[in-house]
């Protein structure tokens, strides 16, 4: 059974200290129900969140009258929202449920993620920017990317967000300005790191009907050990392997992708990911960003929403925010950031933080226009 997207919705993204999670979630779910039409009810709900307290899913759902049906809460770090989406799709595809809500919610509070003290590398003080910084430093050392190409990803995504009224940040920066911003973890500067965000995003899925964006495939994997034997930087191989599975199931290849939302928590992340997905060849990811190939108006736009770097990164909501963008793109509803004639869209989210693993989880979804 082909799964269709009945409707998507999101809250605004950003630091929203006065806005309760209930209101963020309602903004997303209300928009998704309005887009879907029909009854404001579902047969089951999957909720992705990382830092939500116990019971947070039922707490926000009961405030909007969604009670009684099965509610399942999932956590896969930054891929929690896309994990909720993957499970919702599978529940429909397998016939377990008819109409399912996937919801991602997160309040990040007042600061960056603190390293997890029950994890060896977290206990050692490995802030997440440092993990990505070491991938960036390694690729710089190998000559696989240049400092200017890293910065070009930030320039591009901040410019994309100028056309996204829901984005946390937006701006016209130069490569020099990105490089001159405050150093966070060498070589990654402030404008190369995603902000701390509050937000929610939702999708309602069901058996595909005419006129809907449909799910050609969705794949989910968790990372194998990443260590001294690994040929690539952290996170590369789990993205590659998930993408291979997703493309095989979709019956299309990376060359068929018209628009993609990928995990750019840090600039190096987008470059590694575009290469791992096969959107760019080995060593070509940075060049693609610097040359405008992945910009709006380019051959294969990546992160037209502004990405995590600029739209914002409320962890559990991020994957569904990416999905919402791709659904709007494939429906021709993306306004000034519309990729003309987009037929095949891709969503990729990668979550990490567990030592010695090449990522906690990666989800890749391939979607098709109505």
């Amino acid at each position, binding site marked *: 059974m082909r799964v269709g997207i009945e409707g998507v919705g999101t809250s605004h993204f950003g630091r929203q200290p006065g806005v309760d999670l209930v209101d963020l979630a309602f903004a997303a779910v209300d928009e998704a129900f309005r887009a879907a039409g029909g009854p404001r009810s579902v047969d089951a709900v999957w909720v992705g969140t990382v830092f939500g307290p116990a019971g947070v899913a039922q707490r926000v759902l009961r405030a909007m009258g969604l009670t009684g049906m099965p509610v399942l809460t999932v956590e896969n770090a930054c891929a929690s929202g896309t994990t909720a989406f993957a499970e919702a799709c599978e529940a429909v595809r397998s016939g377990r449920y008819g109409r399912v809500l996937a919801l991602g919610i997160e309040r990040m509070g007042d600061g960056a993620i603190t390293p997890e003290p029950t994890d060896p590398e977290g206990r050692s003080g490995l802030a997440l920017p440092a993990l990505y910084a*070491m991938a960036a430093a390694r690729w710089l050392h190998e000559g696989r990317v240049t400092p200017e190409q890293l910065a070009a990803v930030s320039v591009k995504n901040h410019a994309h967000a100028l056309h996204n009224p829901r984005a946390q940040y937006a701006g016209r920066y130069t490569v020099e300005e990105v490089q001159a911003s405050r150093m966070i973890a060498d070589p990654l500067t402030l404008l190369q790191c995603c902000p701390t965000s509050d937000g929610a995003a939702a999708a309602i899925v069901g058996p595909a009907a005419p006129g809907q964006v449909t799910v050609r495939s969705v794949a989910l994997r968790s990372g194998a050990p990443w*260590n001294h034997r690994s040929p690539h930087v952290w996170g590369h191989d789990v993205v590659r392997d998930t993408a291979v599975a997703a493309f095989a199931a979709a019956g299309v290849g990376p060359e068929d992708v018209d628009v993609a939302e990928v995990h750019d928590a840090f600039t190096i992340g987008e470059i590694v990911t575009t290469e791992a997905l096969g959107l760019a060849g080995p060593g070509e990811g940075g060049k693609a960003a610097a040359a405008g190939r992945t910009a709006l108006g380019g051959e294969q736009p990546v992160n037209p929403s502004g990405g995590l770097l600029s739209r914002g990164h409320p962890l559990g909501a991020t994957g569904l925010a990416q999905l919402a963008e791709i659904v709007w793109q494939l429906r021709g509803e993306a306004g000034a950031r519309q990729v003309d004639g987009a037929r095949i869209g891709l969503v990729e989210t990668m979550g990490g933080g567990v030592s010695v693993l090449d990522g906690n989880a990666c989800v890749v979804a391939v979607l098709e226009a109505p």
Partner: protein
Amino acid sequence: MTRVTTPDPRPRVVAGAEGGGLVEGRRCTACAEVVAFAWPACPACGGPVEPARFGPEGTVWSATVVRVPVPGRTPPYGMAYVDLDDGPRVLAHTGGPVPIGARVRLVPGGDDGDVRVEVVG
């Protein structure tokens, strides 16, 4: 900082015979995978493991300097992934910046529990 009551998950570094530190880890008796942790089974294949010590020297695979506040830490501080000779990749504190490819040596464990390396020579 949140008080942590769980056992310290970091690799344990003991003093080696020649002055450097050695990581107390495990080697898989099925696939020969090595890890810097006293885990009950091999993370690569699930096979049985035996105690093994690695170090004291290795090569910096990559490195960074953390310049943002982290609970319980004072920035800036250097960190590196170090591939120990014939051993696993370990995350280590370096003090300041170290170049990729640098030869480093494990420092025997201090009171703070961090894995630490110093540049050789």
